[in-house]
């Protein structure tokens, strides 16, 4: 601190030094706030430490597009027809995330013989859908659908009321099914 010749601080200089201290403190606080904000946005603050209320939906556009995709894909994946069965399965595989293809293949292999023998058609009718959670690249939708199984060899149709959680993940701009849990 500068002082006047008689030892007393000069008011103007004291103000200048005081302002410097305040500005330095402001800079420190701003740096800390910026760092904390960065950590919150990109680090440990997200997503696990946040309560469910804060993280169910982190992208509204993904909620909309992923929710629509989940419904369309569920119809494609869960329905099949003996007519053109193999081509349909091949086409549907392209709509799946790689990690889900093995499970789909196993399911289709399990129904193929009977489907072709009895000329089964399994049609899917979506009765309702809504989104459970959504991030930019992953959406989980709850889909209510009816699976209507028919065959020219039997006079009756079977209707299964299904509840399924459909998980779609974005892969190169396209939504693909990465998981399906009927329960």
């Amino acid at each position, binding site marked *: 601190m500068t002082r006047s010749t008689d030892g007393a601080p000069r008011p103007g200089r004291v103000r*200048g030094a005081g302002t410097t201290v305040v500005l330095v403190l402001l800079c420190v606080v701003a*740096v800390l706030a910026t760092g904390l904000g960065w950590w*919150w*946005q990109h680090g440990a603050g997200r997503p696990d430490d946040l309560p469910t209320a804060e993280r*169910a*939906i*982190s992208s509204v556009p993904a909620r909309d597009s992923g929710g629509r995709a989940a419904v369309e894909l569920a119809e494609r994946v869960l329905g099949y027809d003996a007519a053109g069965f193999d081509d349909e399965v091949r086409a549907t595989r392209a709509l799946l995330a790689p990690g889900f293809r093995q499970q789909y293949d196993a399911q289709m292999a399990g129904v193929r013989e009977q489907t072709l023998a009895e000329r089964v058609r399994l049609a899917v009718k979506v*009765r309702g859908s809504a*989104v459970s959670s959504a991030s930019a690249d992953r959406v989980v939708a709850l889909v209510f659908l009816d699976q209507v199984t028919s065959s020219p060899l039997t006079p009756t149709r079977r209707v299964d*009321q299904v509840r399924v959680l459909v998980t779609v993940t974005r892969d190169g701009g396209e939504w693909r099914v990465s998981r399906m849990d009927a329960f």
Partner: protein
Amino acid sequence: MARSPRVRWGWPNLLLGLLALALVAAAVVVWTRPASGGTGDADARELSRRQWEVTEAASAEVEAVLGVDHRRMREVVTRVQDGATGDFAEEYAEGVDSLLSATRESRITARAVVRAVALGPVTRTRAEVLVAADARVTRDGSAGREQLRQHRLRLTMVERDGRWLTEQLEFVR
């Protein structure tokens, strides 16, 4: 007495002021911008909160509606009516007497568990909700044998004085 060197505070303070201004601006940007870099993050957080509130209310209502205890049906009815409004409240009130007599005669107990809840179209005061719930039903004298009933429900929830209430409830069959 030796004189201290004179310090000119003007320029350093001006520079420090500009630096502080820039840092404060950076902090504001970091705290207010969406994590994903999009423009919808504040909307997403708001939607998440609403979804959580609606989910809690819808789950409680569905568990109340599907839950049955023939020994304490008045409590069940009160719980359902507490979360109901509009059309659903009226429909439920009309059916209460027959519900009470039916459960008394059948001596049924049902324990309801919500398995999944998801939010459809939603505004600040209205939301459509899908709920998947199971009810495990037992009858007195059935030696504890349970019957599982799987339900699909569609609810319309409305916000009234800070609470989400069920205005419509439909079984999706």
